[in-house]
């Protein structure tokens, strides 16, 4: 309970619209996730094997991942034994707390590493079709709103129409795009973009890259080269390497995080398409098994639907109706 109290206090100091957006965007996730946990507690009065098995399934269906779920269930069983919990209702609080602990490691920074008064280079990487170009467009918009000057580099020279796609975003949000023709060397595009960004004195350069499956060694090498070229042109850059992950992705997201990290030192994750029915449970697994924080979340199709990830917001969005008490208290406080 104390965890949720703390959470609630923290959230009341933050903007309501963002909280609402997280709640809205995660409606589907919450509906099938927390509601099911609630139902489970109602249906099974006693804490027994069957109860745990059912709980296991709910978590697995949210794409939390088998090993993470197994760890969690083991911990819960231990908890139940040591605290001598027999009733499922008593265990409910423990479940929520354990889940939240997975997400809220507390110490890691989910803010984008934007340099003060200096050029910041952000490199976007990921497999095909996760929404890299769209995320760049949205982030460009967001940064512009914050008063930053932005430049984009069309580093996806492979996929048909990718350069045009970024250009359309450029026109839409009013940001210039550095581009070569299709089939050009992406490292050369990025090289030009960094130079251009330096002469123009822009604040942030966003670099798009072609989607690639992480088991294609030569394509991963290409990515390494792109990163190296950026670092050579601007020591210390890229300041962020963001891995874009589709929320509907299953356990393969873990492989993606591992392999892309090896090639490019991924510093954060952008979780896209979380407004579907996908639970995005893979976030828990990634936080549990890897040290990569989620930094941005895509919660809709509109330009402004990209948000800074906030573990507290996410946990709240995910679990706000697991504990009816918290929900009620919350309502009283806010309305």
């Amino acid at each position, binding site marked *: 309970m104390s965890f949720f109290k703390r959470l609630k206090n923290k959230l009341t100091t933050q903007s309501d619209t963002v909280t609402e957006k997280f709640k809205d965007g995660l409606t589907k996730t919450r509906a099938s996730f927390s509601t099911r946990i609630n139902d489970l507690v109602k249906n099974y009065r006693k804490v027994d094997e069957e109860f745990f098995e059912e709980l296991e399934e709910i978590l697995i269906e949210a794409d939390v991942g088998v090993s993470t779920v197994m760890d969690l269930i083991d911990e819960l069983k231990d908890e139940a034994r040591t605290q001598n919990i027999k009733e499922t209702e008593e265990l409910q609080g423990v479940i929520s707390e354990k889940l939240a602990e997975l997400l809220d490691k507390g110490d890691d920074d989910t803010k984008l590493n934007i340099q003060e008064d200096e050029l910041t280079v952000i490199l976007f990487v990921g497999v*095909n*079709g996760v929404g890299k170009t769209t995320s760049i467009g949205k982030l460009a918009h967001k940064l512009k709103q914050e008063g930053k000057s932005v430049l984009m580099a069309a580093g996806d020279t*492979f996929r*048909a*129409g990718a350069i045009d796609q970024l250009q359309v975003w450029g026109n839409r949000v009013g940001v210039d795009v550095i581009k070569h023709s299709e089939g050009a060397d992406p490292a050369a595009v990025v090289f030009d973009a960094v130079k251009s960004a330096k002469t123009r004195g822009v604040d942030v350069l966003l670099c798009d890259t072609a989607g690639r499956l992480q088991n294609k060694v030569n394509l991963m090498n290409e990515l390494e080269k792109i990163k190296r070229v950026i670092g050579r042109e601007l020591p210390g850059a890229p300041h962020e390497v963001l891995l874009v992950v*589709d929320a509907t*992705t299953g356990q*393969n*997201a873990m492989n993606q995080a591992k392999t892309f990290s090896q090639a490019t030192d991924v510093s954060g994750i952008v979780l896209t*398409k979380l407004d579907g029915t996908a639970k995005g449970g893979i976030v828990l697994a990634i936080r549990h098994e890897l040290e990569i924080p989620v930094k941005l979340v895509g919660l809709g199709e509109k330009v402004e639907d990209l948000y800074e990830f906030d573990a507290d917001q996410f946990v709240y969005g995910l679990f706000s109706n697991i504990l009816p008490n918290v929900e009620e208290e919350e309502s009283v406080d806010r309305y």
Partner: protein
Amino acid sequence: MAFEGLADRLQQTLQKVRGKGKVTEADVKVMMREVRLALLEADVNFKVVKRFVAKVKERAIGQEVLESLTPGQQVVKVVNEELTALMGGEQSKIAVANKPPTVVMMVGLQGAGKTTSTGKLANHLRKKNNRQPLLVAADVYRPAAINQLQTLGKQLSMPVFDLGTDVSPVEIAKQGIAKAKEEHHDYVIIDTAGRLHIDEGLMGELAQIKEIAKPDEILLVVDAMTGQDAVNVAESFHEQLGLTGVVLTKLDGDTRGGAALSIKSVTDTPIKFVGMGEKLDALEPFHPERMASRILGMGDVLSLIEKAQTNVDEKKAKELEEKMRTMSFTFDDFLEQLTQVRSMGPLDELLGMLPGAGQMKQLKNVKVDEKQLNHVEAIIQSMTKGEKLHPETINASRKKRIAKGSGRSVQEVNRLLKQFEDMKKMMKQMSNMQKGKKKGGMGNMKFPFM
């Protein structure tokens, strides 16, 4: 290779059962837990897993297994059969309308690979079925989606129909089909915009397109990496549109592709094609039975055979066989054979398809060095015609010349000559062995490596 991790897992488990003479109920229980975990880790939907495990368990603990002579094999068979059944039984083909054009509609979530698959499917239809498809660009929402299809059309030299982004997709589909009729195209492939299955407005639009276009085929394009949600997506598209098939994309990644297992079982919609690479010819028919054998480590022998058949000229193969028998196999033949094998694809991929290869430790991380093969080719190509026919004439000075010509060392030339001699010897033994087999005895065969 897809399904690799799952295959390993199941193999380890099945190994335990294979070794024993009898399968106890406890064994089956242990095995089924492993099967369950492996399938869940592969992103197979948990409901599907539940049903699958229950079914196999029932069959395995029943008499069929316990009273059969080789219980281990029997279990493998049961798991294999059930897995194949789960993935969709027989392979199904793409529809052909009685009256052309056949209309195909591509639908799916954002980023699944609809536009790329549209291009690949058009290419496939032209190449394998000799069809003349018209591509219709009905994705008016995603920036530059039409450009993407146009670029693909250009690469394929195929016509693309579009009306820009200001016309409704329904109208585009209507006019596209009219145009196809006018110009006598036998296939129309409509590329629609990606959308969430819970987006009522956009799903309604698809229903409208369906109404107008009366498609013979509605293909749901699904990313092979999709997690548990694949089932909800497929179910919901199916309910609202009545799918006729599924295209599973990005299967050339290292995903275990459990989504493939789930979709058919939940929606009763077959997987018709799989995307196996970024190039436009990387679309293959889905073979459920092969996928199942691959999972169980029986190797994708069928795939290998088919690959060999399309790439190896049969007449040449016969000639080669004759040569092997009569020992007149030369470096020329060797080079030809090498080229043919390499045209089937990367060697390590071929190795992976061999039965049991997944289990062999020494083969597990084998990366066949394609460079080495290039060197071999260079050495052979540096020989004179006479030398290729009669390698025994190659003396020290000839070796030096060959080494210089190919840019390799004399030692490498020596090694190749030695390997070639060994190979010829082995071929002789193998053809002897075959003769021996006819007589009914294989007793005195000797392998150089035994």
